[in-house]
């Protein structure tokens, strides 16, 4: 399948269309909404399901050196990407140091829903992927936060962390974030219980998975559309551009790593997607604690309203095409 075919087919997938429906509904000010409790529950479900599946895969394939190396590569990327992002933001936009650091943290970290959407596309292409990539996703959540904090503290010691929370205390607050705990926990449970465990709960975490993902994407569309309607004017053209070109920068970096790591085509597509995706669940909450002076309207709107739809609609097919070139 050519990249254009892939992109077109992706655009008419229920997932992308439900996201678009959500955005549209929010823009026409419909009162369509997913209750907060349901949204949290859906997010919990997705984390649990993806973590468990990853663990089951690893229980089948066993541990190997590739897993360790890929995890190290993920940590390195998560730490390096914010540095590059911060520099670009300071050069090309008017964001202050704290805002620039906060935004770049989102890009160093990952979006598990973008990852999940990519797994669906990869599976749709008949490809498989290394189960341990879920572990890679989990470890990529936090290094970016540390990097952003270091950047902010060096550039604006007064503002950022003026109250002197130690880095350790902050990391404890951030590292016990519920979405990370459930992802990692479910991964280990999947690993420990293996296929027997999977057989037991597959009708819950596998069969309805894509449908629930559609519903969650509808909700993300509603939130993104509302964000664009209300927070849109916070985004300068330079920032919006960043939200689109920077994932490509991260993707290029990750593609180089993927080639070196010798990942499968599916695995490379997912690894690139992780690097190119920007967090909008775990990191925004972490930033409210770590850098409360940063403006949340900027980073949330950019990550969820610009980068997420870009990745969902165009980025992932592109990363899959790149992966097909470099791997396999």
């Amino acid at each position, binding site marked *: 399948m050519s990249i254009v075919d892939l992109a077109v087919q992706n655009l008419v997938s229920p997932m992308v269309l439900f996201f678009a429906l959500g955005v549209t509904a929010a823009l026409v000010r419909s009162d369509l*909404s*997913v*209750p*907060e409790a349901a*949204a*949290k529950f*859906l*997010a919990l479900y997705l984390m649990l399901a993806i973590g468990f599946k990853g663990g089951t895969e690893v229980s089948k394939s066993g541990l190997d050196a590739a897993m360790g190396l890929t995890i190290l590569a993920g940590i390195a990327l998560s730490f390096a990407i914010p540095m590059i992002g911060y520099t670009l933001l300071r050069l090309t936009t008017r964001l202050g140091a704290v805002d620039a650091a906060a935004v770049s943290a989102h890009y160093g970290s990952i979006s598990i829903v973008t990852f999940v959407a990519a797994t669906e596309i990869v599976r749709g292409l008949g490809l498989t992927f290394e189960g341990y990539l879920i572990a890679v996703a989990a470890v990529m959540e936090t290094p970016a936060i540390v990097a952003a904090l270091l950047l902010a503290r060096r550039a604006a010691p007064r503002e950022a962390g*003026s*109250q002197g929370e130690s880095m350790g205390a902050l990391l404890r*607050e951030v590292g016990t974030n519920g*979405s990370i705990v459930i992802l990692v926990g479910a991964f280990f449970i999947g690993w420990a219980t293996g296929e027997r465990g999977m057989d037991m709960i597959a009708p819950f975490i596998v069969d309805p998975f894509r449908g629930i993902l559609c519903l*969650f994407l509808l*909700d993300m569309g*509603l*939130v993104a559309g*509302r964000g664009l309607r*209300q*927070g849109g004017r916070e985004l300068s053209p330079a920032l919006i551009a960043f939200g689109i070109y920077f994932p490509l920068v991260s993707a290029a970096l990750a593609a180089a790593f993927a080639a070196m790591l010798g990942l499968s085509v599916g695995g490379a597509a997912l690894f690139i997607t992780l690097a190119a995706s920007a967090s909008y*669940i*775990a990191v*925004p*909450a972490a*930033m*409210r*604690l770590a850098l*409360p*002076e940063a*403006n*949340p*309207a900027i980073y*949330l709107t950019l990550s969820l309203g610009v980068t997420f739809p870009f990745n969902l609609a165009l980025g992932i097919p592109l990363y899959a095409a790149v992966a097909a070139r470099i791997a396999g």
Partner: protein
Amino acid sequence: MEMHSKKRIEILLEAPAQKRLTDLLDRLDVNGYTVLPVIGGKGHHGVWSREGLPSAAGTMVSVSVIASEERLDEVLRPVFELVRRHIGIVTVSDVMVIRGDRF
């Protein structure tokens, strides 16, 4: 019924910082506090709504503390210091309680 005059401090605060606030209140040794949900609002930081949000970021809670007039300043100062860094507002109002010794 005999009633005693107290102060009610209401702290509207972004939800991710809730634990920081309640930990602070514990350190300040207040007699208690109550957390109420908030579903949306508007202020200098713009409009927000809890609908559809899968995480605490972007949502707020309201924490109210009933305290005696004498303790008011002692509680208010550090609370305001914390709230100042975050998105939030603090209000104080008069209230009567029945079992005055409990607050």
